[in-house]
């Protein structure tokens, strides 16, 4: 199999296929998207103009027999942050591209025409399909229509928000059953970049493709066995759905709702408190019990579930489907912790049904849930929606479907622009991107990550919650202020994982089980035919490329700071502020 890079030129409506150049040979996922963006996109360019490019890259191991390795990275200059961006997701596209031998798809150029297109990628062939009839269509309807013509295909692309160039537009992806477009590379407005290229969907059909094979099969297999064992043995990633064992299979990521609340760190009412009385009603435990209840009541007709895989070959299986209490039919899949927090807790909405419906609208319209929830909080600050009113929030969000509705368009630009437009000062953003579901005042390490990551506020970029709250890797005190080393180590390892194609949740197992960590490096090195492929060295290299891009784009140390209210305003119930010094924040990259 030849490893290829595909260039889709939307100025010419043409494409090329080239063998992957030597300098990119050992890259994949985030490592490859960030390298290509840094090499080919002027950091000062308009993110929605002709100079930007959007890159789709499966991880190094995607499509192989390595477990939970089918993640897709999407990269570009972000219209939301103005810096480099990589967002990754499960779904089908990464595995499909990998089986066709495609290491990256680069969409470049700028169309003069006003038509919409899909791009169909299949073995040795690329087609442009005119798709004007699919513009402004909800994504649930779109993916169903596309699978009728292209069954089993991987789908990803830009929804209504992206087609309208709104800055909170994510890149959607279909789930393996094609029942939901909810596998989002959501953050940073990448959907708007694809929309600026007049592309709606990238359809990948891997018929005739084959599984990518490792160069050093022995080393790869040794590592693979270690990784499988670590994931299966560990209490968080292992176990079995419906039994006492297995946190993620039973409760999904939303198992965090109650624990972060009990730690007094669950951002409530636009980060005014760390405790929300209603959190339990929208928690992972609540979803689990609703699924069991509706399964019993509706039998074969019930569509709720947990322990579901977000991509083929995932053995962690943290995804879920929230059912309607009265019919058993699916409302949305998945409901993640971050989404339940953003669309629930932070708006003091504690109806699981309302939260699930809000998430469904996000998925349908093509926006990231975290920034959408923060934007709704801003709308509540502005008095446009009453605090805690789930039904009113749903009606407000539906304004997004109307191209002539100003509030709808404003909220789909994300929290930062919504705040500026509506004259609200209190907005939780770093580098223009909204904060996720952990208040940085009681948990200092995650605040260091929010402030310093190249991505804008992003928990996944250096998930120090694992040691600070969940006891991983021996644990760390959440109140401790010297967190530069911890955050840097997590940011670096994460960059490596994001390049590998593995899901970030392997971290829970490999932090606690040494063989799992060996398995990570051995599978990657074995696949690439290298003796070693050091985690910290490679991770740091990716971060430096991204940091350099951001510097050239105009970012300074002043951009590596949290909003002032986190420093000034005490968070109840523990009455703590974010006391980490600026020197400590700067040490993350200064001491790399």
């Amino acid at each position, binding site marked *: 199999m030849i490893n290829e890079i595909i260039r889709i030129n939307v100025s010419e409506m043409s494409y090329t296929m080239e063998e992957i150049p030597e300098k990119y040979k050992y890259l994949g996922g985030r490592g490859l998207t960030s390298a290509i963006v840094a090499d080919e996109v002027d950091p000062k360019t308009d993110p929605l103009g002709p100079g930007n490019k959007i890159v789709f890259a499966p991880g190094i191991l995607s499509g192989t027999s390595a477990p939970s390795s089918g993640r897709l990275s999407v990269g570009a200059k972000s219209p939301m942050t103005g810096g480099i961006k990589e967002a990754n997701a499960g779904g089908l596209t990464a595995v499909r591209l990998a089986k066709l031998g495609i290491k990256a798809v680069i969409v470049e150029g700028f169309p003069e025409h006003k038509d919409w297109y899909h791009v169909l990628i299949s073995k040795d062939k690329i087609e442009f399909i005119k798709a004007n009839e699919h513009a402004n269509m909800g994504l649930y309807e779109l993916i169903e229509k596309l699978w009728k013509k292209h069954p089993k295909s991987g789908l990803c692309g830009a929804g209504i928000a992206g087609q309208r160039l709104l800055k909170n537009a994510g890149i959607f992806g279909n789930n393996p059953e094609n029942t939901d477009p909810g596998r989002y590379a959501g953050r940073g407005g990448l959907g708007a970049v694809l929309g600026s290229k007049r592309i709606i969907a990238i359809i990948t059909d891997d018929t005739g493709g084959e599984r990518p094979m490792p160069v050093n099969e022995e080393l790869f297999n040794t590592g693979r066995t270690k990784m499988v064992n670590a994931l299966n043995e560990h209490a968080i990633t292992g176990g079995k759905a419906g039994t006492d064992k297995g946190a993620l299979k039973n409760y999904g990521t939303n198992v965090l709702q109650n624990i972060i609340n009990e730690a007094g760190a669950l951002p409530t009412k636009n980060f005014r408190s760390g405790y929300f009385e209603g959190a339990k009603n929208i*928690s992972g435990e609540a979803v689990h019990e609703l699924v069991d209840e509706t399964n019993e009541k509706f039998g074969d007709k019930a569509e709720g579930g947990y322990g579901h895989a977000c991509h083929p070959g995932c053995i962690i299986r943290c995804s879920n489907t929230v059912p309607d209490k009265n019919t058993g039919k699916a409302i949305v899949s998945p409901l993640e912790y971050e989404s339940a927090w953003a669309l629930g807790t932070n708006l003091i909405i504690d109806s699981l049904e309302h939260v699930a419906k809000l998430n469904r609208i996000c998925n349908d319209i093509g926006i990231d849930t975290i920034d959408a929830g923060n934007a709704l909080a801003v709308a509540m600050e502005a008095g446009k929606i009453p605090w805690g009113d789930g039904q009113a929030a749903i009606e407000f969000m539906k304004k997004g479907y109307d191209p002539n509705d100003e509030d709808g368009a404003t909220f789909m630009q994300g929290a930062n622009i919504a705040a500026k437009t509506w004259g609200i000062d209190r907005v939780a953003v770093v580098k223009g991107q909204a904060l996720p579901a952990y208040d940085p005042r009681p948990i200092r390490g995650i605040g260091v990550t929010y402030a310093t990551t190249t991505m804008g506020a992003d928990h*996944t970029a250096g998930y120090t919650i694992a040691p600070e709250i969940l006891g991983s890797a021996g*644990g760390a005190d959440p109140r401790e202020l010297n967190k530069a080393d911890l955050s840097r180590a997590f940011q670096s390892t994460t960059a490596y994982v994001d390049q590998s194609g593995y899901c970030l949740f392997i971290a829970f197992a490999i932090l606690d089980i040494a063989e799992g960590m060996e398995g990570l490096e051995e599978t990657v090195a074995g696949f690439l035919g290298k003796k070693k492929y050091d985690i910290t060295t490679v991770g740091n290299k990716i971060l430096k490329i991204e940091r350099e891009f951001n510097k050239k784009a105009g970012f300074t140390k002043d951009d590596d700071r949290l909003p002032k209210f986190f420093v000034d305003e005490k968070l109840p119930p523990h009455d703590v502020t974010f006391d980490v010094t600026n020197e400590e924040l700067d040490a993350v990259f200064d001491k790399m």
Partner: protein
Amino acid sequence: MKINLKLYATLRKYLPNTEIGEAVIIEVKQGSTIKDIIDKFTIEEELAKIIFVNGIHETLDYILQENDLPVIFPPIGGG
């Protein structure tokens, strides 16, 4: 003395007929530790992975005070 206890996720089964997040008042002897509570409920030690008392991380040897709120989670993770 009386304390308030919350158990979450798979540990919920040890407090049957309670709502999610409901604090149950239990009577313990002066000087009791968290370890004494999990023994009383026959919860395996490795399943009492994350312990908060009044919102602060504590360990199994923490000595309980009147009206304390211990909250116990099994190994969990997400994000």
